[in-house]
Each structure stands twice: as C-alpha cells, then as structure tokens.
C-alpha cells in the first residue's frame, strides 16, 4: 500500500495544497503510484482516490487524459522521441525510424527483453537540440539532447546495464 510505504512523501505532497483542496494532490500521487507499481494499476487508482477523497473514476480519467501516466505495463523505460515539426526539420523522423530499426521494434513497441518501449511524442521544449528524447522510468523523466542513433544506443546500453545491476 502506498499509504504505508510512502507515508512521509504522501504527507509532503498533501501539504502543498490547502487542506480543503486535497484533490489537487491527485497528479503527484499518481506519479508516486506509477513509480511504485510501474504503471497505474486499478488498485492504485482506488488508493489515490481514497487519499484525496475523490471517486476512482475521477482519478482514472486523469490517467487517460495525461500522456505521462500509463494504465498498461510497458518496458522498464519508455524512450520518448519528439517527432514534432521543429524536431522533424532537424531529422527526428529519420532518427526515430533508424533507432527503431536498430532495436528491432516499431514505434509504440517494447524490446523483447522488456527493457525499452519506444514512443513518438509531442514537443518537449528541446527543439534547438534535436534530435532529442526523454526517458521515463521509475526514477523520473530525463532528457537526452543532440542525439544520433549511436549516442542513443549508448544511452540504451547504459539503461540496460543499470537495470541488470538493480
């Protein structure tokens, strides 16, 4: 249970908002749940709902609306490549295609070892350093900019190494 395992963190999150507006804590609590369980499970929805005094469906709707929450399990890391217009003008679509080829997956798919899900995403405010991507995992979200397929493969190797030591 989140409430038992992360009591101090939950209290710190709730303290950011006026006590009568606990629902504001829904989004940070969903991040906490996702980090704990890998994705937002049905049980986690209820846990978050109970913590803020909301309905499970209200919390569930947030997971559907916001792209950084996932209600299905994916790879241990989600590698999210921006393919929006400014990045595309700097070769991001070709970069995404070649990286996928190297990994033997298509956009949206997970590598056979369950480590990396490759996704195309919308603008990440890194247009001047395209091609770029972010990696979303249990330790948050981190940017990797001015990338080539070679440097991206190195990032992926590092992630795989990190996971095998974990």
């Amino acid at each position, binding site marked *: 249970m989140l409430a038992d395992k992360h009591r101090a963190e939950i209290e710190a999150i709730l303290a950011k908002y006026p006590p009568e507006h606990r*629902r504001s804590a829904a*989004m*940070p609590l969903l991040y906490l749940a996702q980090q704990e369980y890998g994705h937002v499970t049905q049980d986690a929805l209820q846990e978050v709902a109970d913590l803020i005094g909301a309905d499970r469906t209200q919390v569930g709707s947030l997971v559907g*609306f916001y792209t950084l929450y996932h209600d299905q399990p994916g790879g241990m890391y989600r590698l999210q490549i921006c393919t929006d*217009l400014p990045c595309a003008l700097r070769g991001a679509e070709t970069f995404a295609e070649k990286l996928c080829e190297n990994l033997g997956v298509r956009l949206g798919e997970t590598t056979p070892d369950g480590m990396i899900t490759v996704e195309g995403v*919308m603008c990440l405010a890194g247009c001047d350093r395209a091609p770029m991507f972010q990696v979303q995992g249990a330790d948050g*979200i981190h940017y990797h900019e001015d990338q080539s397929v070679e440097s991206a493969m190195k990032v992926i190797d590092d992630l795989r190494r990190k996971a095998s030591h974990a």
Partner: protein
Amino acid sequence: MPEHILLRHRDLPGLERLEVYRKHGGFEALRQAISTQTPAQVIDVVKASGLRGRGGAGFPTGVKWSFLTPNVFPRYVVANADESEPGTFKDREILERNPFQFLEGVAICAYAAQANLAYVYCRGEFWDLARVLEGKIAELRAAGLLGKKLFGSDYALDIQVHLGAGAYICGEETALLESLEGKLGQPRLRPPFPAAEGLYGKPTVINNVETLANLPPILARGAAWYRGIGTEKSPGPKVFCLSGHIARPGNYELPLGTTFRELIFTHGGGMPGGRRLKAIMPAGASSSILAASDAVLDTPMDYESVAAIGSALGSASLILMDETVDMAWVARKTTEFFKHESCGKCTPCREGTYWMLHLTERLTGGAARPEDTALLESVARGMQGKCLCALGEFSTMPVATALERFGADFPAATGGAA
C-alpha cells in the same frame, strides 16, 4: 544587445546560485517593493513599464493584475511554466540557468496581488527541473526570502511547484487551473476570468515564466528605463527562439522590434547549406505561416508589426523552413500536434482537428481526392471563431495559411482537378 536582462546568466556565470544572484543585486527589488511600496504602487510601476505578457497573448501585465476582484481573499499567483508550444524553449533556459530572477519575479507578482501562496505549474517533462526549482525554493525559505514577515513586514509568502503530466492544453490558463485542482486540463468557459474566479474559485493572477522574469529589473531600474528598450507599444527585451532550418538554433535575447532579418541572419547565422529561406512560423506551431520575402524580413518583430503582415508574434518562437520543405507536409505535422493535444471538450476543435488530420494525411500520402484541398480549407475556415479556447483557433492557422500562401504545394492546386 550590450547586456542580457532576462538571460543574465550568459553574462554572469554561476547566477543559478543564490549567493551569486544576491551579490548582483538579487532580491533587492523585492525588498524595496515590500519595504517601501504598496501593492498598488507596484502595479502602477508595472503598468507604466508597458510590459506585455510573454506567453503569447501580449496582454499588458499590470492591467491584467488590476482586474483582481477587490477585497476577496485568499488570492493566488500561478506561474505558467507549462512551456509546450512546438518551437518554444525559452522559459526552460530561464528556469534552468536564471531561476532566482524568475522566483523573485513570482514573489513581486504575489506581493502586488496580495497573494500569500504561489504555484509554479511546470510541464511534467520538466521533471528534473522541477526538483531543482524545489531545491531553490527551499534555499529561499532557509534564507528568510520566503516565509512569514518578509523583510520585517507583515507580508507572508510561500511558493510550491506543481508538476503537470503531458498536456499542451494546460498552457491555456483556465485549463492549467483545472489541472492544478486535480482535474482534466480542459479550459473553462469565460467569463468569469481567473482574476475574478481562478484557482479554487478565488482571484488569481497567472503569468508566463518570461513575463515574471521581467519584473525584478523593471522594479530595480524603473519603468522609464524599461521603456527605453523595444518599441513604444511593445517595450522591453524578448527571448526569441530559433529552430528548424537555421545555422545556429537557440535562444536570443533582443529588444522587441528587432527585424526578422537581423535575428535570422545576423544572430542565427542564416540557412544551412546555402539554401533559400522559404517560410517562417513566428509563433511556433500556432502560427499563420509567412512566406519569406524582403518585406517580411525587414519587418520589426513587435506585436503590432507582425500582426500587420498577416501573422502574430505570439511567444516569438520562430520555426524556419528552407526551400526543400513542402507546406502540405507542414500542415500535416502541425495538425498531428493539435489533434493529439485537443482536449476534446468542444466539438469544433475535437472533430475539426480529426478531419483536418485525415485530409492532410491523404494530401501528403499520395491518396488525395480532387476535392480534398477545398474540403480542408472548408473545415479549417469552419472551425474559426467557434472553438472554446485558442487551441482550436490556432490549429487552423498553419493549415489555412499553407493553403492560401503556398497553394502550389497542395496536389489539387497543381492538378487543377478541384
């Protein structure tokens, strides 16, 4: 520009550290405001400076603050750090490299608004940055620059960081408030405006990161000094973002009213590979696309002049495209974005972006029907003026102007079948 006012870290190494920021006058503007000026006087200075909102709308900041419903408390200030417009990455540099100038701006705004609690709404992807900002805010609390009885007054302030989770629409201020309240980021019907009923139904000021970063220098150096930069109607410095086909992409701080030519060619280094500049989107994906010409390049980049040539300055995020770019493809790319980011609340935007995407995919995928170009124009024009918020309206602009100004790039136009 001889000195940076917003990207001041480029002149002063280590400015992201509190002791360095204070050594260079940091938090003196806030101290003076709280110790010697009433909130109304601070609002008057900001009004007199002519500062206009840097998030895109260009609305006068001091005027926006003066709309707060009198005598209703608590009030809130929200900093909009949901920077998500394709082509825009200026707020990120300010937050990463000059965070204390931004936070001092938040505090000045909060004092003027008589708010005791401010939130910084960061887009979810700024995960690492949000952690850094929380650390900076903790330093301010420890230094007595946030908390109770600031500078010996009765004024108290705290700042909290709230992380979004991947939704462009949350940059729209009422959607941002919904999101901060733990709901879907869908825009509210207005009026009431946030100055009357904002966060938790209370009077609220929402300002963009760059807008807030302008406040410490304005208070420290005065409205007359500020008006000496930029143009009469668009005063002050602006951070311009350059992306797409450009030799030196990045942020450039220049006075409002700098010409496109100076920014693109003198500062940005022009087109790579000696190719010709074909098109400019001055306001990121939310732009009416300009066909590059000498007249356009010699236009000063201020709110009025860019509007006069058939586009908008917006957030001043220039996406540049050379002669190899097909504008039908550009219309598809921007439509993919807006279709994905449409919140689904209002029908014209939800359905309109869906159909525009189908049509632009057909038009660029070799499966165009003779009537598709005309149909695309009809859908885009049909959405205009009917959407709940600016997102829907913006989604039509690149499409409508690609058709109008680059008709030769669309299949039916060249085939003459329609």
